């Protein structure tokens, strides 16, 4: 099994045109085997682009194709509205990779989803997406570096480190159930705890790798959750031990201020929760391989 997306997931790409990012990634996802069933574009309803039927709205796309998931990579000024349009149309899993959405828009959209569309889960924004190897890939992750069959679930706040984690495991012959990139924005639709809970409930996931980053307190909260709820082994790596304090390093979420949110504080909290904490991505891969080999 896998979490959030699998071989039954059907995807609508929001904002397709022959030159859009959405189409580019959507076609890559389709090549991987993802069931891409529709696209949307208010000015191109009725067209077929690269074999993908285009509808004027998500609502029409869902009515015609029964799509269950959507993929959004539209520019920041339009992204929040696109997420809400998907939720209004009944989409249950929305992946938004758009980087640079204003925090005020994110906060408002997140709360609107929680209040009005509790059955819609948002992944992102500003995330690489999700891949259940061999079944479904929504986003920008390269399918080549993932390996089907489990038993490891991956959840990560950082884009390139997500790839790094997949690569480290696949190279050692250790597969993944699902790899979720939650993104580093201030108000992520899906957080570590959501993924940890889903991995705990998934019988095929037998160990979890968690990649964190400086800033915020999500890793500390995840540590508390792991201590109280997880029966499966967790290996973690937190990037940014040597990051200079008080500087933004490209991610809105990765801000260090004072002693709060430092990589060290996060690693300490995770260690105290019984998590195997590695000092770099390679070591995290090695620890996970050892754990998987020792599984009964």
């Amino acid at each position, binding site marked *: 099994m896998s979490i959030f997306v699998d071989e039954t997931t059907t995807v609508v790409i929001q904002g397709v045109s022959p030159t859009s990012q959405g189409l580019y990634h959507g076609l*890559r996802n389709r090549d991987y085997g993802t069931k891409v069933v529709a696209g949307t574009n208010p000015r191109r309803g009725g067209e077929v682009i690269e074999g993908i039927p285009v509808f004027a709205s998500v609502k029409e796309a869902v009515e015609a194709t029964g799509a269950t998931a959507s993929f959004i990579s539209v520019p*920041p*000024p339009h992204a929040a509205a696109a997420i809400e349009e998907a939720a209004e149309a009944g989409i249950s899993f929305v992946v938004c990779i758009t980087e*640079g*959405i*204003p*925090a*005020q828009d994110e*906060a*408002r959209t*997140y*709360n*609107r989803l*929680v*209040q009005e569309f509790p059955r819609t889960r948002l992944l992102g924004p500003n995330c690489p997406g999700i891949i259940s190897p061999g079944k479904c890939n929504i986003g*920008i*992750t*390269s399918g*080549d*570096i993932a390996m089907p069959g489990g038993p490891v679930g991956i959840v*990560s*706040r*950082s*884009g*390139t*480190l*997500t*790839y*790094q984690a997949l*690569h480290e495991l696949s190279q050692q012959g250790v597969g993944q159930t699902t790899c979720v990139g939650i993104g*580093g924005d*201030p*108000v992520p639709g899906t957080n570590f705890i959501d993924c940890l809970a889903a991995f705990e409930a998934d019988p095929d996931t037998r160990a979890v790798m968690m*990649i964190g*980053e*400086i800033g*915020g*307190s*999500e890793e500390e*909260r995840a540590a508390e959750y792991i201590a109280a709820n997880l029966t499966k082994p967790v290996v973690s*790596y937190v*990037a*940014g*031990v*040597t*990051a*200079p304090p008080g*500087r933004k*390093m*490209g*991610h*809105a979420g*990765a801000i260090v201020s*004072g002693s709060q949110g430092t*990589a060290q504080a996060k690693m300490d909290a995770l260690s105290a929760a019984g998590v195997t904490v590695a*000092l*770099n*991505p*390679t070591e995290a891969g090695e620890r996970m391989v050892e754990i998987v080999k020792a599984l009964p």
Partner: protein
Amino acid sequence: MTENENETENETENEERIAVDLYEYQGKQYFARFGIPTSPGGVADTVDEAVVQADAAGYPVVVKAQVKVGGRGKAGGIKLAADAAEARRHAEAILGMDIKGHVVHRLWVEHASDIAREYYASFTLDRPAKLHLGMLSAEGGVEIEEVAATNPDAIARLHVDPVRGIDRGAVADWVERAGLDEAARAQATDLLVELYRCYVDGDCDLAEINPLILTTDGRVHALDAKVTLDDNASFRHPEWAEYAATESEDPREVMAKEKGLNYIGLSGTVGIIANGAGLAMSTLDVVNQVGGSAANFLDIGGGANADVMAAALEVINADPAVRSIFVNIFGGITRVDEVAKGVIEALARVDLRSPIVLRLDGTNADAGRALLAPHLSDRLLSEPTMLDGARRAVALVGS
């Protein structure tokens, strides 16, 4: 003043990202857009201008250094002046003053207030709660972290649902809970509603007033302003262009900014280039773990074409402290063979002072390494993993 603004514009023509922390005077001007009362005052870049502003504000005045660092008062950067002669003396002393490494180039001169009480007020995002958070305290004028640590009950909190927005009745209750003086409550309630509007409609990450004061003649207004703008929202705030001053005094960062690179200067000897902020941070960590120190943080983003790579190498090459360079690229969508071609082309364009270690991994890594093979030398090395690459780059520092 006009002259100086023109200068600022010229300097920042190529600026893409906008400085997010506003100076006090900018914060006060931002507050004014939303009807939040502040003391009458003006900006001065010279001693003569300071006296003109002081005359206009009305004595006594306060002459305040405009630097983005705390502890201005203790450093002598905030002075009270009873008349023009005193304002001139203070302006002379403060302009050019070095406050914790920040040189004062600009003053804010405002009419001095007769303070009866000092409060604290702010709005920011409570990330764990995913709601907006207002904080209000009757014990303002000091570091709020100190109040939070020693007397947490002295801070009244108000969570605001971003969908529903703020409710004036809830704000009035909040003001009462915080224990603001009776005389200040109605005005403070109005001001806080405006502060929330400034925070939301003004796309602030933080809108903070410390101190918010009650004057002896019963008026409530902002005596300081700390505003941090969310640069992601700059597309809907053309008026923010005036804040796009060159912030950095680090020549490496200025150069990187001109080339549109996400660069932060550090004090070490290993120049770092990586794709993705997470991988770049991780590269710093690994270099540190194997006994080295990074000269910089540099994220060249998802792709790694020859132009971006050449620009990155030029910036690193210009840093005299750099003794070796570690390029750490993980090819996902951008395949490693494409990255390798970009690196080879970039190396042909830039005459590097330091040896360079490449770690190229990910999709098509074997093809990429094969492309690099004929170019390898004791000045251009390739390592298969991040750790090996970091070790090699650190070893080269001493060579």
